[in-house]
């Protein structure tokens, strides 16, 4: 990124941090958490310990970070190297990202930037100018992306409360600041679980690794009475609703399943896993030493805020997570896709000079689709 772009982003971020201390707080058990941050065009600084909001705000003002992180884990010594921190426990966290949902709409709003010649196009496979395959993909998520991500959050939340006995008020949902949601679970029986155990939990939540026997199907002499009932709880119940469709079709569908045989049943399980499992990023949930984006901080992939969703169903990130100034600024924009921020439409721009609000300029510069004129 060019120097004047960085300067512009740093100025905008600094202003945000200065004016919005009210949105940025340290989490509970502050002194047991590890903090970290990144600056524009620079590496990660981590293994930092912070004692309160004041110290955090000071760090933000002094460093003007592009991204700020905090561990979901608690340690005895958060500022020592990883092997000496003495891990105690970690909140259960989930990342749901629109880019992992294989949505149809993606191709309409994904832009490729060639790493060789910087050409920008909507061509997904190779550069339309130099044919290189080294493309950096930038997506400007649309309403459909957000709605689909929300749907995954709802699925996750249901599994958490019904099967895993998590209390609804212990589930906190945040917009990630780019194209998805971060979900935190507090006070659960899973706080002290290690990475391997959490990996099993992710398989459970994603509906991975199910075997036909669990749903009553056997290799030899299958028995109708072992198949799940429509009303059952947990995965057997969800399976019934997805596969039978309705109570009255249960008997007919079971006959079909038995006729089609064991391996076809296994295939059915794999096919429905995408529909009934919650599409979380397993790596995030398994990682018990992660530093995760701090709520209230800005996401340097977009300039939007990672913000708590008060009313999740109505939440619209592109109006509620944009806090940067309205002041107009002139940029050279190269963004062949239209997008919406704060209920205003922008673009498409074809390598042209435009005057736009700061929040939009930051959004495009963060995605490397514009530069300060």
């Amino acid at each position, binding site marked *: 990124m060019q120097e004047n772009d960085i300067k512009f982003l740093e100025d905008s971020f600094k202003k945000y941090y200065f004016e919005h201390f009210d949105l940025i707080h340290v989490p509970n058990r502050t002194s047991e958490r590890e903090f970290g941050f990144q600056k524009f065009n620079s590496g990660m600084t981590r293994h930092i310990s912070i004692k309160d909001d004041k110290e955090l705000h000071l760090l933000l003002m002094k460093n003007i970070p592009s991204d700020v992180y905090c561990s979901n884990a608690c340690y005895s010594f958060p500022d020592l190297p990883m092997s000496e921190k003495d891990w105690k426990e970690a909140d259960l966290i989930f990342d749901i990202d629109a880019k992992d949902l294989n949505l149809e709409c993606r191709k309409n709003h994904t832009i490729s930037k060639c790493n060789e010649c910087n050409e920008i196009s909507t061509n997904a496979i190779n550069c339309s100018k130099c044919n290189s395959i080294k493309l950096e993909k930038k997506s400007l998520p649309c309403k459909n992306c957000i709605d689909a991500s929300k749907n995954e959050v709802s699925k996750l939340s249901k599994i958490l409360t019904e099967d895993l006995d998590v209390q609804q008020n212990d589930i906190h949902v945040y917009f990630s600041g780019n194209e998805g949601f971060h979900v935190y679970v507090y006070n659960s029986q899973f706080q002290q679980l290690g990475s391997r155990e959490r990996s099993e939990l992710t398989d459970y939540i994603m509906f991975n690794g199910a075997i036909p026997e669990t749903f009553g199907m056997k290799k030899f002499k299958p028995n109708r009475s072992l198949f799940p009932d429509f009303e059952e709880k947990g995965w057997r119940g969800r399976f019934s609703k997805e596969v039978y469709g309705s109570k009255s079709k249960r008997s007919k569908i079971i006959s079909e399943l038995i006729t089609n045989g064991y391996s076809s049943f296994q295939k059915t399980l794999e096919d429905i896993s995408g529909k009934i499992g919650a599409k979380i990023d397993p790596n995030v949930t*398994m990682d018990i030493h992660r530093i995760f984006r701090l709520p209230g901080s800005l996401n340097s992939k977009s300039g939007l805020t990672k913000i708590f969703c008060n009313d999740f169903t109505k939440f619209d990130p592109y109006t509620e997570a944009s806090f940067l100034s309205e002041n107009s600024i002139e940029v050279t924009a190269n963004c062949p896709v239209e997008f919406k921020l704060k209920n205003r439409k922008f673009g498409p721009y074809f390598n042209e000079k435009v005057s736009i609000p700061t929040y939009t300029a930051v959004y495009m510069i963060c995605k490397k689709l514009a530069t300060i004129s």
Partner: protein
Amino acid sequence: MLALGQDEIAKYPFLADAGQYLKDKGFTLEQFGTDPDLKSLVEKAFNRIEVAADGKIYHSDLIGDQASNQAALPREVFSFLLAIVLLKLSGMTTLIKRFALAEARRAEKYLEKDLANISDESKKQFAIRVIDDLFAVQIKKQDDFFVIPISDYLRHSINFHEREWKLINRHVEKGLVFLTPHETVRLIRKELGTYISSKIINAKTPPMISGFEEPVNKLISMSKKFATFTVTTGEYPPCIKHAIEILEKGENLPHSGRFMLATFLLSKGQSVEEIAPLFKNAPDYNERITLYQLNHLAGTSGSGTHYSCPSCEKLKTQNLCFAIPECDNIISPIQFGKKRF
């Protein structure tokens, strides 16, 4: 410490304090080596180890869970305690492990029976207490099942590789996992084995006792047949081949895939400089960052931690596993192509 009845010591002899038991019964170890009436117990102990080494479970004189006669109970306990003495004198760890596992499976049978006991509530309560005291697993009876918190279940089930033990294949409701008595006990098998073997390993080794030399020597030569050696074909497993293909095509390999590939090759003895060029085609390739990350994984920079290749289980979760029949139940890509003789 649990209060043990005669019956319970016979079923779960590892719960007893060995030295104290002998003292209470008025015996010394030396007597077993010399007294012709007691010598048969040393043979019984040897036999108990021999059966275990064969991978079988020792058949006791207990019928059902009652002793066939009063004298059988102490014989059960003595043969267990003497087996430990023989193992300690032989010093053969492979035998200790096999013995502990077989004894665990023997105890498992009794625990299961006690848990499922409907007529004698005290037996059931004793089994529940053994499981809680030894393994901190709190189980509760609910209808025909035993229920345990998911978190406790996971701590134990991750040691199993069979798919039926995956949480997804379990009856889960309101934070609890539902298990049959058999499954409840099976869940702690490994820990039971570890508990018994650590008790044996931590027991003091007595000086050689006259009359014990012969069985001890037999144990030493018995343990030799368990020595194995391995050969490797050198072929890469399908997950690694797939990752290399993706990179060769210039497509994006996710971070987890790069981690797998790099740690795999490092563990096969390749150097950072040999591995780095593989990533050249990645869309976001940056030589400096690649070298930094590889050195970090190898433990030559940063905290010095040497990262190891993820398990097959983890790779499955990350959608990086492309298992073929030749994978044959390995649990890590590193084991691919290794054959034991």
